[in-house]
């Protein structure tokens, strides 16, 4: 059986991370992984909630070397945690701060770990080993698990590093959490598998991001999203030079990409992927709208659906986006938005089917529907345009419904606004046609309408 090493850092002194202004060596990382793996409680399934990216990486690696599976749900609401327990009854979480706010047994990441002694060998992991289970919102209201095997993940992030030209040591700071596919792949696994060093913090405000980036040696990368990039460029008059900018979660507007490249004096590359396939393509946004697939990845049209196959994608997988091949080339394509049911807000993905299920599961809601606005403004482009919802719920107030939804769905999907009607304009088959939904929205937005709020 083929195996692949846990990290690509050949020399024990090579930097794996930067914490508190100091490099962490591969030697220390392997020692920390060994220590944490020995301390983890029984239980095969782990929810890794570490906010410190280095501690996340150590915990992830400790789980991998001890044959545990890291669970990556799309949100941490009480309802999702209940579903995690149903799917994986032995699940516990690893946290590096007090009160993670999740109803699961907690293992606290050790505050102090011993300084590394003798050099440990880099563990080799079987390519077939399942190391993560990522959950998407199924349209039936239940989370859908996707198994991620070590071999496929490693091939994926190596292809990414190759595409980005990351062949020697580099440092990276990221504004996205490690706990979803983009963060897991680009900010943890890619640096581990291409000799990079990750910055342990996850800076939030623009000034934090600039300071973290400036603290790193070059070459250095910033891994971010369109909405972080936009606020950063709008707020910070002066930004530190970078060597590469990486963006994903929503397509970036070309003028924003131009501005970012000029201000950071670095090329900006966008990554395209999804939970099911991982990352499969990239584009230099300022060079054109077309995406180029990673080496060995091919796209195939079948009716309205486009499938990805080859490379790390072990079985052909349908994509959730509306895609057009350029000149029938299976490696170049244009992205025309998502299929109607999928929604993506600030990198969090769900489906209208899932959200509608959760809305209608609230006691007292007789009927209800989420609607994604069609407007093509900047906020919609960057994937931060909020959803609206319309309900028939005679006995409930807006606060009742919002509180119930908060237990069930991620806060980014909470409706703004939530509106009340006597009945929804459903057609004879019980469907709510798109034009009827948009007409309802137009009515709601009219300043003359005042009777729909509670």
């Amino acid at each position, binding site marked *: 059986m083929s195996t692949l090493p846990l990290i690509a850092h050949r020399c024990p002194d090579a930097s794996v991370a930067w914490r508190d202004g100091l490099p962490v060596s591969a030697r220390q990382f392997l020692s920390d992984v060994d220590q944490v793996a020995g301390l983890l409680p029984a239980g095969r399934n782990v929810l890794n909630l570490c906010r410190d990216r280095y501690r996340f990486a150590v915990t992830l690696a400790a789980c991998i070397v001890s044959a545990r599976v890291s669970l990556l749900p799309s949100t941490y609401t009480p309802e999702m945690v209940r579903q995690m327990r149903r799917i994986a009854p032995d699940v516990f979480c690893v946290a590096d701060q007090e009160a993670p706010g999740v109803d699961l047994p907690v293992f606290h990441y050790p505050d102090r770990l011993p300084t590394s002694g003798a050099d440990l060998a880099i563990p080799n992991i079987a390519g077939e080993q399942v190391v993560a289970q990522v959950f998407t919102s199924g349209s039936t209201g239940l989370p859908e698990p996707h198994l991620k095997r070590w071999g496929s993940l490693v091939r994926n992030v190596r292809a990414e590093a190759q595409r980005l030209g990351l062949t020697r040591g580099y440092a990276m700071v990221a504004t996205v959490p490690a706990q979803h596919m983009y963060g897991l792949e680009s900010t943890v696994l890619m640096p581990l598998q291409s000799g990079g060093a990750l910055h342990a913090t996850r800076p939030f405000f*623009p000034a934090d991001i600039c300071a973290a980036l400036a603290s790193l040696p070059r070459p250095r990368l910033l891994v971010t999203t369109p909405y*972080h990039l936009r606020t950063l460029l709008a707020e910070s008059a002066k930004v530190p030079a970078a060597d590469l900018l990486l963006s994903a979660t929503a397509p970036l507007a070309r003028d924003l990409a131009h501005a970012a490249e000029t201000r950071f004096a670095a090329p900006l590359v966008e990554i395209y992927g999804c939970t099911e396939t991982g990352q499969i393509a990239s584009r230099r946004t300022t060079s054109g709208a077309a995406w180029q697939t990673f080496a060995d990845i091919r796209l195939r049209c079948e009716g309205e659906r486009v499938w990805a196959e080859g490379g790390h994608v072990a079985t052909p997988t349908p994509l959730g986006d509306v895609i057009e091949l350029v000149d029938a080339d299976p490696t170049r394509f244009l992205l025309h938005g998502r299929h109607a049911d999928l929604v993506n807000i600030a990198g969090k993905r769900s489906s209208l089917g899932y959200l509608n299920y959760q809305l209608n599961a609230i006691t007292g809601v007789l009927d209800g529907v989420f609607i994604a606005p069609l407007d093509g403004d900047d906020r919609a482009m960057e994937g*931060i345009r909020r959803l609206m919802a319309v309900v028939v719920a005679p006995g409930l107030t807006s606060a009742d419904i919002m509180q119930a939804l*908060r237990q069930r769905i991620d806060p980014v999907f*909470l409706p703004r606004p939530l509106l009340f009607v006597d009945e929804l304009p459903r057609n004879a088959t019980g469907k709510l046609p798109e034009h009827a939904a948009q007409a309802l929205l137009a009515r709601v937005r009219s300043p003359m309408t005042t009777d729909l709020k509670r």
Partner: protein
Amino acid sequence: MTEAHCELQSEVARLIVDALNLDIKPEAIQPEARLYGEGLGLDSIDILEVALVVSKRFGFQLRTDSADNARIFGSLASLTEHIAAARTQ
């Protein structure tokens, strides 16, 4: 509370409502109610938007390590207090 502080608090409330396109009147934000989660229901995307308009209007940048963020964004009153102390314009 001084009149100037009251005025500042109203201005911050207006900034929040305008920046986030909230469907409420600025006066409807209770000064002590939580901005995050329950209460006004803001999340981290909103906080970044608010940070942006705050820096533009008051001439200083919010930093995670400069103070306790959860406290600063705890309520309209605490955000106003922080702005009053840190503003340069």
